[in-house]
């Protein structure tokens, strides 16, 4: 434990600290609370006015060093602390749904190039992953290496369309990559 008892008062609520962690992070934050029983220091960073804060919960045994910067008032206003479980749960539901939807879009075990192609195609066409194959409009399949030649399935017209889009997207990706570099 890097903490010694004498430093505990420095971890009082509202203190502004500059902390260095054992894994190299450095930051400044304000103490919301320090729970000795679990050795967790709850910090609030970059406090901008308003209910939204950046919270960091840090196990104090990872604090290498800290500097006391000052004292400010309690960041948590006890009068204003309400928890609405139902809304929290609802929020969680929403987030999970969103995450699941996002997860659908990500191919498992595909290269980032493939993913970029997928993302680009998804802007204009309905696409989904089937293992490592991009399935467009449920009929046309684009498999690795995701070249115009790798397009198969579906009607010729659909294939053509997918090929065109694919080419364009590839060009755009290339252009972007080259311009970025």
């Amino acid at each position, binding site marked *: 434990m890097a903490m010694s008892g004498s430093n505990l008062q420095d971890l009082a609520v509202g203190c502004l600290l500059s902390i260095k962690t054992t894994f190299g992070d450095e930051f400044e934050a304000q103490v919301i609370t320090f729970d000795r029983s679990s050795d967790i220091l709850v910090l609030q960073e970059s406090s901008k006015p308003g209910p939204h804060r950046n919270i960091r919960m840090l196990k104090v045994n990872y604090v290498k060093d800290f500097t006391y910067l000052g004292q400010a008032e309690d*960041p948590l206003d006890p009068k204003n602390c309400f*928890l609405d479980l139902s809304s929290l749960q609802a929020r969680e539901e929403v987030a999970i749904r969103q995450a699941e939807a996002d997860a659908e879009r990500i191919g498992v075990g595909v290269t980032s190039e493939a993913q970029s192609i997928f993302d680009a195609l998804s802007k204009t066409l309905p696409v989904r992953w089937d293992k490592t194959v991009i399935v467009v409009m449920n009929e046309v399949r684009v498999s690795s290496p995701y070249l115009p030649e790798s397009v198969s399935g579906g009607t010729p017209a659909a294939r053509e369309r997918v090929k065109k889009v694919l080419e364009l997207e590839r060009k755009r990706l290339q252009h972007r990559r080259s311009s970025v570099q």
Partner: protein
Amino acid sequence: MNLQQVGQARSSNGYGRRKSEREGAAKSENKISSGKSNANRLASTGMVTGNIGDGPSHDRLVYVTTCLIGQQVEVHVKNGSIYSGIFHATNTEKDFGIILKMARLTKDGSLRGQKSGIELGSKAPSKTLIIPGKEFVQVIAKGVAVTRDGPPNEAHHELYQDIIVDSVISQSRHVDLERELQPWVPAEDDPQCPELENIFDETWNRGWDQFETNKALFGVKSTFNEELYTTKLEKGPQTREFEKQALRIAREIEGEDTQDLHLAEERGLYLNKNFDIDEETRYSSVYRDKGVDDSGYDEFDDTLLNSHNSETFGDTFASIVMRSGESSDGKDDDGVRKSNSSSKDFPQSSQASDGVDLGRAGSHNLANELVSELAAKSEPTPDAECRVQGNSFTELHEAIDRSKEGNRIESEEVQPSKSKDLQSSHNLKKDEPNTGALSSNAVSHAPSFHTSSKTPEKTDCVKGVAASSGRGLSPSSSVGSSSSEKSTLNPNAKEFRLNPNAKSFVPSQSPVRPPSQVLDGSSYYQTNVTAVPHMPTLPMELGMGHPFAGPHVLYNPQVAQMSSQMYFHPNGPQYGQPVHPRQVPYMPGYLPETTYKGLDY
């Protein structure tokens, strides 16, 4: 939320399953959900395992972690890996293990991860990831709502959540930064833009001629001929006089009192002190008036009327019809008025011809009407209207009766009113160059516009008409309609019947001159005299089933005779008054067969 079910078994190895529970948390959450939470309460609820601090600091910890539920967080673990996922639960009682949902390894700190170089993003996220307390180094969450303004209520939260969802939706996570945006720098050869302010000022003397430029740059030659779109003013020796006359008449007209909202506004008269007149009434082109009863169409030939876009003209027509008796009510009209006056009469050769042309061999007196109109100008509007009302019906009758030709159009015109009036008006009319154009031509076609309603009391009627024209057709029409009969139809009106023998109107060459030609009025008209008999042939396609479709109908014949353009233009600016497009009868529509040369610009 019952977290007890979550994996009770503790697994000790691998990243796959890490277990943590939030039993204590569940309990405290139950308490918390009752609405208010404060340290004391939490403390008093008594955590199950009491040895973990119950103090306020612990409570705060619990509070903060509860706030994290549903939030996207990053959990750093001992080996340096970072997991990103949705915070689901933590075991506040024990070691603060964390459960994440839909977690992904965003940074692999393990040796294995670093070597393999697998794309982290391409791994499927774990539905549930449990991180044991001892692995947990820190949790970072951004944008956590730690405090709230007040007790949460449904609406507030709904809103809050909606906002979250919306912002989530609007975040286009898959949009890649296409490229570095660069500020636009004008190319070397771009023409230096003239200052914007100057472009719109003083178009006549700014140094740039767009047509020249176009020609120079692109070889585009302008084929614009102003005369195609407007009537050329003949500037002869009498120009000044004509102009004076025209100005005088214009001033008279503009200075008239009017009850019509639109006209009043135009003239700057503040008519209605009460503010019930809303914007729609003031500016809408839908004709609405108390006296006008849309159902009044019934008597008229519905189909015919309707075919002409009753929705646009609808009421107007009715009113027109009604008014046909009245001297051409003005649809707005200064022009009308003028025309009325100009139609002086047959007695005068040219004018007469106009009048006659107008339609009837009989005594039309458009001129009368016009005259009366002019004369009536001075009269107060309301009176005029009333009178007009009275007259309108009579006139209508007369008109109808007179229309022997069976051409309704004609009927309007007929109305031998006071010739003397006509005379005077005629004189007036004659002179105006542009108004004149209106007038003389207008006269003749006045009927067209307004329905040369013959108002015996021309003066009154005219005035009324003129006044009423304020709203175009409405006032008079409404007046007319409301006055004598409930229905706006004239029971005596002859029904409009298509005359299969009607000859198409073929204007003679000369008439195809723009109204401005009026200056040469007399001579000009004379040429038309002979054409008068032609009148009847106005094609029925006017679709005015109603005999009094008059204004429109009349219009045509006159057009035929007179410089047809007059008819054409009546709607136009010549009358110096904005004519509601809908008030103007479908002139274009009416002239398909009347080779209205004027149209062939």
